[in-house]
């Protein structure tokens, strides 16, 4: 277990480094803060579930599409994309790797996304399909806390419990911020937990940067209900000048800032 945690810590660090590398290489502003907040979440999902590009497999849907830098990084770290040159196409003219995912099943990108509040319904459809086919694999969807303002999230939440989708897991990346600033108090970490409980889900909240906590949260699944992991995170986690600084929701790394950010993640 301890060895595994150490491995996943290293993977999280590599994901963060890759996020910064890709972002700096693009020369363009990109969604760094909300990608950094997901590093441990992605490390745990991609290591503890059987996510592959061929059947049978567990499937990962990034509903908070603007977190694509995080997804692209984990796909590289987990060798879905082998060549660094490819990920460095991020936000280059004409590239398929842009601010939001474009579906490409051959490298493990399951959906096109970018319009918030849509990933969970799709995940529910997949989870129902798996049940119908007696496929015991799981569906994992990551949502943002700001994303949970979208009404369609809650429509999907109801369908998930009504169909007893115990093969469906979501992680709400509660980094406490949205585009315009801090999440208001009705959608904060505590309230988020109550809301998913109220919708009949099996809910486990945890520190979204603590690997052990995350692994345990996934273990406490239910036999009858879908599981929501409410993960408290820090937007911009790991880079001192980005943490809880919403200027880095979408920002550009200069050479100096890039070097400083690398120093910062190496310290933490």
């Amino acid at each position, binding site marked *: 277990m301890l060895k595994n945690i150490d491995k996943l810590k290293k993977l999280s660090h590599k994901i963060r480094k890759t996020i910064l590398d890709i972002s700096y290489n693009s020369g363009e502003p990109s969604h760094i803060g909300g990608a950094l907040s997901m590093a441990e979440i992605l490390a745990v999902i991609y290591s503890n579930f059987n996510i592959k590009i061929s059947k049978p497999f567990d499937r990962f849907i990034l509903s908070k599409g603007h977190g694509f830098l995080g997804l692209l990084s984990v796909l590289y770290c987990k060798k879905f994309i082998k060549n660094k040159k490819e990920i460095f196409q991020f936000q280059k003219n004409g590239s398929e790797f842009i601010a939001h995912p474009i*579906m490409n099943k051959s490298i493990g990108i399951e*959906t*096109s*996304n970018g*319009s918030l*509040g*849509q990933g*969970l*319904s*799709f*995940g*529910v*459809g*997949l*989870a*129902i*399909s*798996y049940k*119908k*086919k007696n496929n015991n694999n799981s569906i994992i969807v990551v949502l943002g806390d700001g994303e949970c303002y979208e*009404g*369609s999230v809650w*429509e*999907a939440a*109801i*369908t998930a419990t*009504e*169909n007893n989708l115990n093969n469906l897991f979501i992680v709400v990346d509660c980094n406490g911020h949205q585009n315009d600033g801090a999440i208001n108090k009705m959608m904060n970490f505590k309230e988020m937990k109550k809301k998913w409980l109220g919708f009949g889900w099996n809910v486990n909240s945890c520190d979204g940067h603590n690997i052990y906590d995350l692994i345990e949260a996934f273990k406490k699944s239910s036999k009858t209900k879908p599981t929501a992991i409410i993960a408290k995170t820090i937007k911009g986690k790991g880079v001192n000048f980005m943490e809880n600084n919403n200027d880095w929701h979408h920002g550009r790394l200069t050479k100096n800032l890039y070097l400083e950010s690398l120093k910062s993640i190496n310290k933490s």
Partner: protein
Amino acid sequence: MNFKSIDAKQWLRMGPRAMFGQFMINIAKKNKKLMVLSADLGRSSGLARFKIEFPKQYISVGISEQNLVGVAAGLADEGFKVFITSFAPFLSMRASEQIRMNLGYMKHNVNLVALGSGLSMGFLGNSHFGLEDIAIMRTIPNLNVTCPADCSELGKVLDDYAFNDRGPSYIRLTGIPGSKNLYDKNYSYKFGKNITINKGNDILILSYGSVLGQARISVEALKKMNISVQLVNVVSLKPIDDSVITLLKKYKKIVTIEEHTSVGGLSTIMSEKLIKNQINSKLFSISLPDKFGPTGTYDYLLKYHALDSDSITKKIIKIFKKK
């Protein structure tokens, strides 16, 4: 799907919504991969019996159309043949962006069945009418838009989508039980192709959906007055059968008849074709106005908007006499 004349007569009495449910039963018997979903409008889609006979192939997601489209896309991605139903505006407008992302952008093979489009919801009013749905749906890349004229054509369209890989679709149901049939006997339907209903020389009428039944009666009346009309069923609003361009060139007077506003429907499509192909023919549009009108029975509304056969006949005579 082939049918007998006696079937067409019976189906007319059932109406398009009840027949949709019946056709789904026939398809489910042959295709175990069929899944039918509704956002709490199963009964209104004639699916009451379907639910009992094929409970594992039916899902109600409750009153949540946006969610309905997403769930359907997930099922389609796993290889199910998916048909989903709701009223026309609740699919085409409330779930419009979900349709754009899941069916348009990702090309998930879901068939949207828009119930009660046009004016057929009668006293339920403008909130339930499908006045603008074609205009919206046809702008989404990769989405087919198909508008069957009567129950037998509905059966052929559903069969075609169920047993072929046509890509995602918006299937628009108009008319009510008792609405005039377009087809009395079996005919050949081909995806994306127009169907000639009547041959004539003076005027070209292009139409689709339930009002074609009215147009056909008009054409018979006009025949007696020695006005010879070419009547064409444009069952596919997207893709458009480009053989229509030859007709647009041949006829100097063209009339589009549709149960849709004048914005973005068949008249707009044909205007685009005329301009792009530099064709000099005159185009006349018989359609719904760009406003919210009164409510009433379907027959009342067709007369109010001059889409009944008598009003159509009068308008065509006027157009015929115009120099």
